[in-house]
């Protein structure tokens, strides 16, 4: 087994793929092929996960049925963090390698990230009111997640505030990268500070402290939310590519065929 040769072949294949994907036209074709499959996978996974959370998982001995909010609250929160890191990574790739497609991805990820952050906060409040007796507390987890929402909104607002597309892309990239420090703060907030919000039960270096009858639907919902993100991201990125490349031959040919 010639491992160096195999490794090099894989590396070159990945590099060729990324090089082709830098072409908006190739990305458009790939996205168009992937979207229906991702959409189907999303519908099945999310449907099964929500069904499991609402019908199959047993009630909690302390919280009764109210804990079921976990099946939308936790996946939303996980997505809010994942999408920010994704956005910051694309921003860095754009800044370092001048890859326009990375800018498209970062730009279109922001509203999705903001949506999930908003959902995490609101579903959290709806869970907190019956359980903690309050809609809101300025504890570390909630406050840092609220700041994450402001960061997302800031990135979105900055994009529309700057006329020139190239400058806007660079400025938003810097803001996204600077803000990524908030993500580990959010994650570790429940360990570093005395918090109202409960500590980590799953994302820790130990066995999850949640029973599998609840954990399994939760993980399925989380995967469903991930698939949903990539489906809608590709849909948005595809539109953005059409708009940015509107003066090119392949776009006019595509539009005239309709």
């Amino acid at each position, binding site marked *: 087994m010639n491992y160096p040769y195999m490794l090099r072949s894989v590396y070159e294949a990945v590099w060729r793929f990324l090089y082709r994907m830098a072409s908006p036209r190739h990305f458009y074709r790939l996205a168009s092929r992937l979207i229906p499959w991702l959409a189907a996978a999303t519908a099945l996974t999310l449907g099964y996960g*929500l069904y499991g959370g*609402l019908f199959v998982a047993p*009630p909690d001995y302390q919280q*009764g*049925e*109210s804990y*079921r*909010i976990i099946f*939308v*609250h936790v996946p*939303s929160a996980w997505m809010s963090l994942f999408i920010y890191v994704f956005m910051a990574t694309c921003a860095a790739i754009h800044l370092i390698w001048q890859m326009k497609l990375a800018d498209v991805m970062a730009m279109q990820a922001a*509203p*999705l990230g903001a*949506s999930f952050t*908003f*959902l995490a906060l*609101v*579903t959290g409040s*709806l*869970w907190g*009111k*019956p359980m903690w007796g309050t809609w809101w507390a300025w504890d570390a987890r909630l406050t840092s997640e609220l700041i994450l929402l402001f960061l997302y909104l800031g990135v979105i607002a900055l994009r529309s505030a700057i006329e020139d597309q190239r400058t806007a892309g660079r400025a938003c990239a810097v803001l996204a990268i600077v803000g990524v420090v908030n993500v580990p703060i959010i994650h570790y907030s429940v360990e570093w500070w005395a918090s109202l919000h409960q500590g980590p039960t799953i994302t820790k270096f130990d066995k999850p402290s949640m029973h599998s009858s609840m954990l399994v639907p939760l993980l399925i919902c989380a995967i469903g939310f991930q698939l*949903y993100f990539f*489906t*809608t991201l590709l*849909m*948005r990125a*595809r*539109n953005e590519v*059409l*708009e940015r490349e*509107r*003066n090119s031959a392949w*776009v*006019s040919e*595509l*539009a*005239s065929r*309709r």
Partner: protein
Amino acid sequence: MGKRIGITEIGGPMGEFLAMGGYAAYVWPAFGLTLLVLAVNVVAPIVKRRTLLKRLARIDKLTRAGKTARSNR
């Protein structure tokens, strides 16, 4: 005219499911809002794509007819 039934008075297993152990006022808005946001984020790019392609087709037709700044480039 019969007695009007509120959502909290539906009996049976369906009633229990909708009541969510008394927490219906919290659980259902949480799921409802989530589905609403997810739906909006799916519908928006679909609508945008249609309008975008229509606009691009119109501009392309005008360009071929020599009526835009890009014609005869």
